[in-house]
């Protein structure tokens, strides 16, 4: 069978998918790019061509830089915490003990629940009048009076990060737990005989087997955290005083709350570009990790 026919057949087989992709991704993307060069409103006619004004305005606005910092803080802290907690949980769940299977199943629960359910649950926990967190901290004498964790700019972002970690650490734990199954028993035994303590055993024996899978988890979670919307929208809507406003929330507000479709489109494209840069950088890292592990 000739190579040309094989190539033609491959394209033919991919064609339906390509058509769907062009329809649902390509066309809206082109339309968004067009929109981003106009001052179009959400409703009404197409708007006037304004060149790069939307981009320059957006990039020079303090709103954007503040939101970028908030988003970066949210992404870095929550992903770092998820990685650490996820790996620790996986190491614990990899031990032999009674009820391990039940605990493994329970661990998946926060990740399996819909984000809206998770967010609502955490809103209840943080509730300033009857929230469990206030009750627990008061009874432990760590705080004197109930606080509005989501209502204070100083604590809202941290409270959101905790909720996001709780939801997403099981994914990291699950990936790490699967990777731990690949650590050969003999190598662990050899390190015990060689006198490696728990930390050195983790560093020299376990981590090389975890590095590749964890890098994949890191890529996935960082990209997700960078474009986070739902959990924040349900819990704080970007408030108080925009202290939890992330880039996706800003895009939503710009396009739908303030009905500035052109400006919103330019912001959406900036976010897309940032995420793409992140994805490419991480993909290179994954390739490098996989290469050095081989």
């Amino acid at each position, binding site marked *: 069978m000739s190579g040309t026919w094989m190539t033609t057949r491959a394209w033919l087989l991919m064609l339906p998918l390509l058509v769907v992709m062009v329809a649902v991704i390509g066309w809206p993307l082109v339309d968004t790019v067009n929109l981003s060069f106009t001052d179009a409103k959400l409703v009404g006619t197409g708007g006037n061509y304004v060149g790069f004004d939307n981009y320059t305005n957006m990039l020079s606005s303090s709103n954007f830089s503040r939101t970028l910092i908030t988003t970066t803080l949210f992404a870095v802290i929550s992903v770092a915490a998820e990685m650490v907690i996820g790996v620790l949980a996986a190491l614990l769940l990899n031990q032999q003990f009674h009820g391990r299977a039940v605990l493994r199943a329970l661990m998946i629960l926060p990740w399996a629940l819909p984000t809206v359910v998770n967010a609502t649950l955490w809103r209840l926990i943080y509730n300033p009048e009857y929230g469990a967190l206030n009750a627990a901290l008061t009874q432990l004498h760590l705080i004197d009076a109930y606080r509005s964790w989501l209502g204070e700019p100083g604590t809202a972002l941290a409270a959101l990060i905790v909720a996001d970690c709780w939801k997403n650490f099981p994914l990291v734990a699950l990936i790490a737990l699967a990777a731990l199954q690949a650590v*050969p028993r*003999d*190598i662990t*035994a050899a*390190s*015990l005989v*060689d*006198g490696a303590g728990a930390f050195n055993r983790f560093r020299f024996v376990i981590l090389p087997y975890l590095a590749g899978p964890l890098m994949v988890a890191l890529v996935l979670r960082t990209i997700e955290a960078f474009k986070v919307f739902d959990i924040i929208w349900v819990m704080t809507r970007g408030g108080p005083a925009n202290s939890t406003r992330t880039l996706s929330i800003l895009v939503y507000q710009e396009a739908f709350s303030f009905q500035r479709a052109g400006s919103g489109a330019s912001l959406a494209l900036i976010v897309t570009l940032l995420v793409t840069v992140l994805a490419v950088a991480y993909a290179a890292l994954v390739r490098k990790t996989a290469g050095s592990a081989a």
Partner: protein
Amino acid sequence: MSALEIRNVRKNYGSVETLKGIDIALQSGEFLVLLGSSGCGKSTLLNIIAGLAEATSGDVLIGGRSILGVHPKNRDIAMVFQSYALYPNLTVRRNIGFGLEMRGVAADDREKAVNEAARLLQIEALLDRKPSQLSGGQRQRVAIGRALVRKPQVFLFDEPLSNLDAKLRLEMRTELKRLHQMLQTTVVYVTHDQIEAMTLATRIAVMRDGIIEQLGTPEEIYNEPATLYVAGFVGAPSMNMLQSTVEGGTLAIDGSPARLPLPARFSKAIGNGARVVVGIRPEALRVAAGAAEPSLPVEIEVVELTGPELVATARVGTQRLTACLPPAARVSKGQASIFAFGEDAMRLFDPDTGKAF
């Protein structure tokens, strides 16, 4: 004082008793091979010595000190694994020196010890490579080097040659023998390969179903097997086992008119009418012209030339036996012949207990 002493060690996994009371005392410099088929408990025993598994009861002493409950790193042992168990992200140099590094040995001393081990094992050129860049044989040398630098009281080897191809296995076997002769260290070595056991060991413990069937020198195990199991397990081809009955001072071979003289050394222990299994090593058989010595009339079924010898499978009535003959032996398929052997080559076993008379 023994270098290693195993006292009545038992191991249960739930209701399954894997080790049923093992007793071994090993002098310094001995090379003990634990030999047995899969599931006989040899690796479990090794893991108990290493501290990677706990004994249900009994005691293990190294240099007169009980080591049960002592962490593996404090047992003064080093272990070589079947899968090499090298740390994949560390260089050969760091792999070999890892045990010393973890014990806080100074970098200079470590380097000296690593270089010395590398020289002994002829892997000096590989020190800066990663395990993934090594062949199977090189990896096993590194694993041995990692054990050597520690200079422990007891070396433990868990089927270290099983993952190597036949040629490399032979080379490494000789290498291990050379190292043991040079260093005179105490070794416990687990294998299911009887050739490895015979060539390397100063003593062999043949294990079966959690017990030691026989503990002795390779010569004792080969020439004076204590049980039918040992007789059948050690030796390739394995020992011929002929079912027979004692009749008037002779051994009447079942399913055949052939009779063998009952050696005088057994005549007191075995009475008339007793059932007996006659064991004769294939190497002890030769083609005879007449029937002067103990001999068996046979009919040759299959002849296989292996190179150094001719393996002939023959029938004695309804029973089969194998003979390892010189390549020039004149035997062919379908031919009637006589296999003769010395009386000393005969081993007699009780078919009910499986034990040697």
